[in-house]
C-alpha cells in the first residue's frame, strides 16, 4: 500500500518525533521548580534550600476554624492534612475564599511555618453541583 519512498519518511518522522518528545520531557523536567504553580506545606517542610527573600506560592486547604480577622489584617492556616503553614495577609479576600476550600497564597516565607502573603487566590476544585445537592451531601456525611 505504501510507496517505496514513504517508508524512509515514516522512519525519519518517527525518530524525530521520539527525540523531540524526549527533549520536551527533559526541558519540562528541568524546569519543574518553575512549572509548578505553588508548593504544598509538606513540600516546603521537606525543602532544604529554601530562600526567604524569593517570592513563592503556597497552596492547600484553608484549615477549618483557623480564620482570624481583625479589620483588614487576616490570619489563617493552610494545610495539606500533613503539614501546616500560618499565613498572614492584609487586604481583600476573593469571594470564594472559605474554610475547608482550596487556596493559594503568594508572598514570602518568614520561616518554614510562617508565611507573609501579598496576594490570595481561591482555588476551585473539580466538583460542580447545585446547592441542594451539596446540602444533601453534607447531611449524609454528618
Amino acid at each position, binding site marked *: 500500500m*505504501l*510507496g517505496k519512498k*514513504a517508508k524512509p*519518511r*515514516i522512519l525519519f*518522522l518517527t525518530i524525530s*518525533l521520539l527525540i*523531540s*518528545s524526549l527533549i*520536551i520531557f527533559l526541558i*519540562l523536567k528541568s524546569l*519543574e521548580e518553575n*512549572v*509548578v*504553580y*505553588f*508548593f*504544598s506545606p509538606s513540600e516546603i517542610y521537606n525543602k532544604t534550600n529554601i530562600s526567604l527573600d524569593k517570592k513563592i506560592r503556597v*497552596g492547600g486547604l484553608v484549615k477549618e476554624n483557623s480564620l482570624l480577622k481583625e479589620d483588614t489584617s487576616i490570619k489563617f492556616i493552610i494545610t495539606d492534612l500533613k503539614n501546616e503553614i500560618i499565613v498572614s495577609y492584609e487586604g481583600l479576600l*476573593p*469571594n*470564594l*475564599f472559605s474554610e475547608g*476550600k482550596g487556596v*493559594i497564597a503568594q508572598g514570602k516565607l518568614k520561616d518554614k511555618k510562617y508565611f507573609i502573603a501579598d*496576594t*490570595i*487566590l*481561591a*482555588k*476551585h*476544585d*473539580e*466538583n*460542580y*453541583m*447545585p*446547592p*441542594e*445537592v*451539596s*446540602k444533601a451531601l453534607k447531611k449524609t456525611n454528618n
Partner: protein
Amino acid sequence: MFKNLLPHKILTLTNSLIKNLLSIMILIISLALLFALFFSPPDYIQGDSVRIMYVHVPSSFISLGLFSIIGIISILNLTLKIKFIPLIAKSLAPIGFAFTLISIVTGSLWGKPTWGIWWVWDARLTSMLILLLFYCLYILVWKIVRNYEKANKISSIIGILGLLNLPVIRYSVDWWNTLHQPSSITLTSAPTIHYTMIIPLVIMLIGLLIYSLIVFLMRYKIELIKLKLKKRNIK
C-alpha cells in the same frame, strides 16, 4: 467517513446540505443556551458564574480536538504526500484558533470572580496559550509563504510540533500543581459534575461541533476550488 472528504465529493456538495446543517445548529445551540442560562442550577460555590463553563469547556475540547486532527494530518502529509489532505488541516486551523481564543477569554472571565485574578502563568493556562501560538504560526505560514510546496512542508512541521503540546495541556493539571482545577470529566472515572450541569455542556458541545463542521466544509470546498483553478492556470 474519510471517503466523504475526497475532493470530488466535496466539490459536488450542495449548498442545501450546509443550509440544513445551519438550521440544525441554530436549533441545538438555542436549546443549549436555554439549558445553560435557565434550566440548569447555579453552582453551590461559584453561583451563576458556573454558566461560563458551558461555553468554556466545549471550546477547549474542540480546540484540542481540531489540533490533534491537524497534527495527524501533518504526519500523514509528510509521509504519504496525498495532494488534498493538507487542505483539510488548512481549513480546520482558523476554526481551532477561534475556539482556543474563546476558551482563553471565557476562562479569564471566569477566573476573575472565582480565583480573584484574570490570568496566571500556571502550566494549564500557559500551555493553552502555546496552543494559540501554534495555531497562529500554522495559519501565518500558509498566508506568508508563497511557494505552495514550501508552505505545505513548514506548516506540517508546525502541526507535528504542536501535537506534542497537546498531552502537556491535557495532563498539566495532573503532573504539576496548577491553579486550574483538574478535569471533571475523564474516560476512566465518574464525572464530578452533577448531571443537571452536564446536559447543557453536552448539547453545547454538539452545537459547536456542527458549527465547526459547517465552517470546515465551506472553507475546504473553497480551498479545493482554488487548487483546481491553480492547476488550470498552470496548464
